[in-house]
């Protein structure tokens, strides 16, 4: 692995029967880089993320990832029979469990829920616990699989801010899978489009977020939407006029 890259994927191919999901795909993610992967549903986004997580086999091609990586899934996937702090400290060495869990829960603003049972949490709180669980082991690669998809619009805005802040602090490389173009533009340094099992196009967005009225932001957004097959400019205009970044395709 080159020291500069957290992730190096080359020639990755994955097929389910005759359906090719990933077709000789190449991808690199630099250390501390935040990459968002967008694409239509069923387009192989989640398959790629799962492969990087080590949850899917690498039949063809090569994948280099750091040993320390964690995933935030679409659902919180908390163990309902373990208290919140025990969920966060899952798999940590016994001696550091309590302290590290408390620290991580403080970061996501849930320190006072440490003793709670997961079933008493709201959807947004549960997903914040999942985020704390992922970050507590200081991963070099953080994999986010549509983690905000099931949350309401307002909670999602809070989560975006939280994720940005946590990325600033911990600096892991991040791969965020989403079908929400606005989410991708808001969070990522680079947005890549997965189409027909390959990386179709990528857009550097690091500077764009600073000013939404920057015409390049709207260009990037329109470009991404058109790549995903949304050409209706009306949709684009209303969202921008509202100044909201919460709608999905």
């Amino acid at each position, binding site marked *: 692995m080159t020291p500069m890259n957290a992730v190096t994927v080359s020639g990755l191919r994955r097929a389910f029967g005759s359906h090719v999901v990933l077709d000789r795909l190449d991808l690199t993610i630099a250390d501390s880089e935040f990459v968002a992967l967008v694409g239509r549903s069923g387009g192989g986004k989640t398959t790629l993320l799962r492969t990087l997580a080590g949850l899917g086999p690498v039949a063809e091609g090569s994948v280099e990832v750091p040993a320390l990586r964690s995933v935030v899934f679409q659902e919180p*996937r908390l*163990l309902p029979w373990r208290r919140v702090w025990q969920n966060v400290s*899952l*798999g940590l060495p016994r001696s550091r469990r309590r302290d590290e869990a408390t620290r991580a829960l403080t970061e996501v603003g849930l320190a006072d829920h440490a003793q709670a049972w997961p*079933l*008493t949490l709201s959807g947004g709180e549960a997903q914040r616990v999942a985020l704390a669980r992922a970050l507590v082991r200081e991963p070099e690669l953080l994999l986010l699989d549509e983690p905000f998809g099931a949350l309401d619009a307002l909670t999602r805005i809070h989560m975006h801010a939280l994720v940005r802040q946590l990325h600033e602090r911990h600096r892991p490389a991040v791969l965020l899978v989403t079908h929400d173009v606005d989410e991708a533009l808001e969070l990522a340094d680079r947005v890549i489009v997965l189409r027909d099992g390959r990386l179709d196009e990528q857009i550097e967005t690091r500077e764009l977020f600073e000013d939404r009225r920057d015409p390049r932001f709207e260009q990037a957004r329109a470009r991404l939407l058109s790549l995903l097959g949304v050409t209706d400019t009306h949709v684009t205009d209303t969202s921008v006029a509202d100044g909201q970044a919460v709608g999905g395709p």
Partner: protein
Amino acid sequence: MTFSAGSAERRWRLRVPSLVRRAIVPILLIALWQVGSSASWWSTEVLPAPWDVAHEFVTLCNNGQLPSNLWVSVRRALTGAAIGIAVGLALGVAVGLRRPVEEALDATLQMLRTIPFLVILPLFILWFGVDETPKILIITIGTALPMYINTMSGVRTVDPRLLEMGRQFGLNRLRLIATVVLPGAMPSILTGVRYSLGLSWLALVVAEQINAQKGLGLLIYNAQSLFQTKILMVVVYAALGLITDIIVRLAEHRLLSWRSR
């Protein structure tokens, strides 16, 4: 607007503890039994009065027969049940988690399950003699099978996404079983424990028909002519069943407390 009906019910619940509410019907039945006996609604040859049964209880306690034999039987039942529950649990987890184990064992175990285990008793006497071994074994088999069935179906219902999460966060196989599989299957496992312990008393009665030189079975055998002793034994078995059920309920309350909040 007020909802007075609901609050009235809550007040009744607060004032009268759950234990008392549960005891009302059994106490009424015993009272009816005593009244019927006293009023000679039936002959004491048919059903002795609770008072006589209680008297027999005191006699058997005082001469030491009941405590010593009860202890022998309880130890027998619990030894058999402990082995049976452990074996059933291990088999249930292995079969529930591993396809090859399921293919190897499930058909055989399901077949065994359909045999009423009590009919194996004569064979056991033939094979293992008339000592403790066949008695313990019949209880073990009787308890292992319901434990196996319930554990296996519980393990099958564990959310595969939680298993995947556990593996992703670096839990090895044993820790995965301890932190994800067993707690996830716990409601079914406890149902299995409840069935198994219930069956262990049933199996005990049958097992103690073999050459019982000690135990509740001996008391029943000796009491052929003493009717109140037999009734007393029925009451003792009922009490044993009730006590084990209460213990499992308490365990459930503790182990599944995460569900009710």
